[in-house]
């Protein structure tokens, strides 16, 4: 499984995956979680925080099928804790250049089986940590489902509550701040059975995604080979 980062810059390369993501979000949050407020007749779950500034993660299996998604919003822009559920925080909502809000966490699907779902969950956490490393993010805020807290803790996240748990129609959740602890990565990668970074961020200029994806997977040439190749070129140039 790979996790692709989608930003406003490279969005046009992921039109199919973005549509699949909104359909998946509808499946998970409306059908499975029962959050009927998010329901839409066209089967696409889109809210006011899906803007050009939003960054998405899509988990794709080796066949390119979407196996999960996440989204993160910069804390210095309107996000859920500041503009939708301010009552969840008893203290001022942490905002700053090193803090992003994490939401719409949807790895896997009830119908996909334990193996895929477990892999997707791990991939999601690894991706969020690798993204934190790439952007200098120190912590993610968000509203965690009370029932998801044990799972988060098992993975290694240490959610710090920002307020008291709030009961809502379909469950209970609590605003949290999760430090982005990069030291979790080696263990998570071991559990996921991967040694390379999972996160793929394809540049906007890439005309073909496939070529870039393949290039990322091919390792760098051995130093000896590179030297020999350069020598051969120099020889030909001199003769």
């Amino acid at each position: 499984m790979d996790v692709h980062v989608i930003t406003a810059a490279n969005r046009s390369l992921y039109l199919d995956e973005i549509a699949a993501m909104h359909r998946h979000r509808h499946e998970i949050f409306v059908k499975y979680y029962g959050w009927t407020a998010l329901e839409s007749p066209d089967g696409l779950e889109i809210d006011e925080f899906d803007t050009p500034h939003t960054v998405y993660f899509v988990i794709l299996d080796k066949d390119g099928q979407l196996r999960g998604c996440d989204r993160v919003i910069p804390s210095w822009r309107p996000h859920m804790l500041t503009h939708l559920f301010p009552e969840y925080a008893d203290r001022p909502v942490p905002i700053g250049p090193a803090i992003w809000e994490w939401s719409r966490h949807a790895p896997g699907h009830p119908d996909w089986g334990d193996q895929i779902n477990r892999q997707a969950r791990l991939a999601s956490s690894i991706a969020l940590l690798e993204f934190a490393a790439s952007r200098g993010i120190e912590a993610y805020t968000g509203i965690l489902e009370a029932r998801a807290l044990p799972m988060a803790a098992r993975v290694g996240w240490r959610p710090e509550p920002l307020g008291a748990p709030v009961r809502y129609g379909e469950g209970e959740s609590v605003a949290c701040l999760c430090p982005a602890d990069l030291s979790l990565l080696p263990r998570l990668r071991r559990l996921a059975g991967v040694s390379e970074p999972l996160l793929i961020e394809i540049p906007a200029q890439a005309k073909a995604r496939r070529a870039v994806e393949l290039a990322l997977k091919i390792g760098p040439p051995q130093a000896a080979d590179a030297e020999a190749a350069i020598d051969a070129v120099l020889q030909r140039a001199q003769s």
Partner: protein
Amino acid sequence: MTLLVQEERLERAFGVIDRAFAASTPEELDQLMKGAFAEFGARFFSVDQMRDSSGAIVGIHHFGQWPDDWGAHYIEQRHYLHDRVVRHAIACPRPRHWVDEQRAGNLSHAEKRLFGEAGEFGLRDGFVTPVHQMDGAVAAVAVTASEKMSLHAVDKAALRLLSIYYCSFGLLLKQGIDAKGRARNVLTPRQRECLQWARAGKSSWEIGEIIGIAERTVNFHIEEACRRLNVTTRQQAVIEAVIKGMISL
């Protein structure tokens, strides 16, 4: 109607065409053409796509000054199916004058009803000039009047000339506007309207029923919206439009 008078009218038509070269907006062009067509007794004029380049019969209204309710009624009653003027426009570039069709007799019952209904909407005579385009598509310019138009040979030539130029200039202006719209990612009100209903889960047919246009016109608007948003499918268009704030959640 003397030949001299007809020739003077033709001369004035050339003058209008000269000025039409300089028209920079569809509104400007329509103003010019309005005066020109009025010389022949015509009040309304419209450019419509009869057939697209793939050979499909489409019936899409491009531009013109036309009674909206007649256009909607025409589509609703599916008059394009038995309107011989449409068939003839596609088959042959020669213009048709309604009065000639009616006089020729052998109108089907449906056609007699069509002419009768047009009359009820204030359209009692028409002159239709087909425009056969390079890629196999066929457009038509319909110029209509509330009274019978007295058109002699030179008048018909003048009307045909004005119609062909109106179609050319009008489509060029429209393409320019479309190109600018695409460059700026802007959607027209109709495109936004269709996407908004698609967001509400409505099919093209349902959208047509709701806003009173043909299903294929809805598809036409959505396809152009897709082009402007640089996407390929309807779902992708809805998503981009919502994200960019062009349609509401």
